[in-house]
């Protein structure tokens, strides 16, 4: 690739076509890291999320596979104990908590709140991720189809109009109301909730993806790919989608946060995940009845949800700033 030969040695330094010399000073990834690391709030959010991920995995392992903290043991002798209290003398030795004391107290049935929160971290997080995964898949599929095949006519209506009108129709309804209706009218289970939250959240993603595809479609690399004879399915999913993903990624992160909040609102109204799964939303709404007698039952999950959702939002906003050059300070 070194076509041009420099004629003087000083020109050699400046005119070299050597790929290493022509490379930008920092790759896009390094640039992204540099900007992201300057944002203290986003960094804080990121580490909180890493901690949450570790906690969720540890929680799943330690409460269901190698049980160290059993969230389901009912100890009626130990009801409403405050955090850091030891089990009472009446409780069975086999029911004693790991470590000898209740880190976060007990609830109205004597269950260890720490164990329930530990288990609930995995469940809440998985509800968020699965719901967002579903809405991302639907959104990217519909947005991609509308953006790429937009002008193709099916019978009398273009694909773009069809998909976009359907999206607009779905956006007309108040989303929480629809979710509540769907869940109330079907058998409540954790999978129903995940699927339903996912099914009503794809509209924003579809619009983003379509907008990105509309601009990407005209770019040269797509034309080049078509000229090379690459099948269209591969062009869409292998070449265009990765370039369209930046706003989708940001809205996905914020979507997980909003899925967690939606799940806690559903639990508040009585339509949350049914037992045996304990989610933070469940613990919070069970605890609201005891806010004067046992405030830790209400505040601990509330503050936990707050910190986690805040972390997601901060990371999402940090990503948006780092990935979008137009938003940065001039």
């Amino acid at each position, binding site marked *: 690739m070194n076509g041009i030969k420099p004629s003087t040695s000083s020109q050699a330094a400046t005119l070299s076509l050597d790929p290493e010399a022509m490379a930008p000073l920092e790759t896009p990834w390094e640039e992204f890291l540099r900007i992201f690391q300057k944002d203290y709030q986003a960094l804080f959010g990121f580490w909180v999320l890493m901690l949450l991920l570790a906690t969720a995995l540890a929680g799943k392992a330690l409460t269901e596979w190698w049980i160290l903290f059993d969230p389901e043991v009912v100890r009626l002798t130990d009801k409403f104990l405050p955090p850091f209290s030891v089990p009472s003398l009446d409780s069975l030795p086999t029911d004693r908590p790991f470590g000898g004391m209740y880190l976060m107290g007990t609830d109205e049935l004597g269950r260890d709140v720490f164990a329930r929160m530990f288990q609930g971290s995995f469940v809440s997080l998985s509800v968020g991720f699965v719901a967002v995964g579903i809405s991302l898949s639907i959104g990217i599929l519909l947005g991609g189809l509308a953006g790429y095949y937009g002008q193709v006519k099916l019978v009398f209506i273009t694909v773009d109009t069809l998909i976009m009108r359907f999206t607009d*129709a779905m956006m007309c309804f108040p989303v929480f109301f629809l979710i*509540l209706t769907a869940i109330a*009218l079907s058998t409540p289970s954790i999978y129903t909730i995940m699927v339903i939250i996912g099914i009503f959240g794809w509209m924003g993603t579809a619009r983003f993806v379509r907008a990105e595809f509309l601009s990407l479609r005209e770019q040269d690399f797509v034309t080049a790919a078509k000229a090379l004879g690459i099948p269209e399915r591969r062009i869409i999913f292998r070449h265009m989608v990765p370039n369209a993903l930046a706003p989708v990624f940001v809205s996905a992160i914020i979507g997980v946060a909003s899925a967690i909040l939606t799940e806690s609102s559903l639990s508040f*109204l009585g339509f949350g995940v049914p037992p045996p799964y304990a989610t933070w939303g469940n613990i919070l709404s069970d605890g609201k009845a005891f806010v004067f007698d046992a405030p830790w039952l*209400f505040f601990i999950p509330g503050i936990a949800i*707050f910190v986690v959702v805040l972390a997601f939002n901060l990371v999402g906003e940090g990503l948006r700033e780092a990935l979008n050059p137009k938003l940065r300070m001039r």
Partner: protein
Amino acid sequence: MWNFILRNIGQRLILLIIVSFVAHSFIHLAPGEPSEVDPMNPRMKPEDIAKIRAAFHLDEPLHVQYVYWIRDLASGELKSFKDSQPVLPKIWKRFLNSLPLFILATILVWTLAFPTGIYGAVYRGGVYDRSTVFLSYALISVPGFFLSYLAIMWVVGWLGVPVISIKTFGMEHAEPAYKIMDRVWHLVIPSVMTAIGGIAVLSRYVRSQMLEVLSQDYVRTAKAKGLEEGTVIYGHALGNALLPFVTMFGLLLPGLIGGSIIFEQIFAWPGLGRLSYEAILNRDFPVIMTINFMAAILTLAGTLLSDILYAVVDPRIRLH
């Protein structure tokens, strides 16, 4: 201009028809029916269930039920499944209850969000800016009912502000002045709680719009000409920054129904959100479908209004 408006209205009418189909089929496709509200009731004999199903046309195919619904809605005779009362007066009454809450919350949101956002943008990076940005992230991250319960505990305990429903029991015989003040007091906490999320989101949006405008070339020119800071910001930048928000006026309409189901439940406010919640619990299809449909109508009308306002205010849209 008229062309633009008529085209928009036409598109929206088509969308409205599609939306009515979606609203109708969605409810009927979900499992669960009015006759199943009380499945354990031993007195519900199969003949009664059959009678209920016949009265509500539940055995007919979907498109026939759709026609029944539209016909009853248009003639105003749509009856609720729960107590056979006409649906539209029910909705209207609850809507009037929700209205003061909505108006006060909207006023709070719009008057508090703009100064916060603008000041934050103008003094970007300063203490005020960073603390309000962090505060707005915090406020959208708190679960709504968590914050409301905290507010109830502190405010009622400390300041004695009433938080249950719309008026105090027994105030019917008091003087009008006391009655009015009582209503106003009851409005305060629910509307503040409803407004908080809106203020957080809107002030961030205002701030980012203002930042984008302040980085434009014409602002730099104005400063280079030596104009005062105040003139530059309020005379030149502000008008252009606020342009998109004129269109957001239109999007206020759907909020009327979007309805704080959660907040109305917490504060026992007898409004539209609570009506929809009760209807869902009772499998009251006509009420659910009608409220959904009205929400969709308001959304479409709202977006139409904002499109028109945008065209009026921004000549670039009109001339395309």
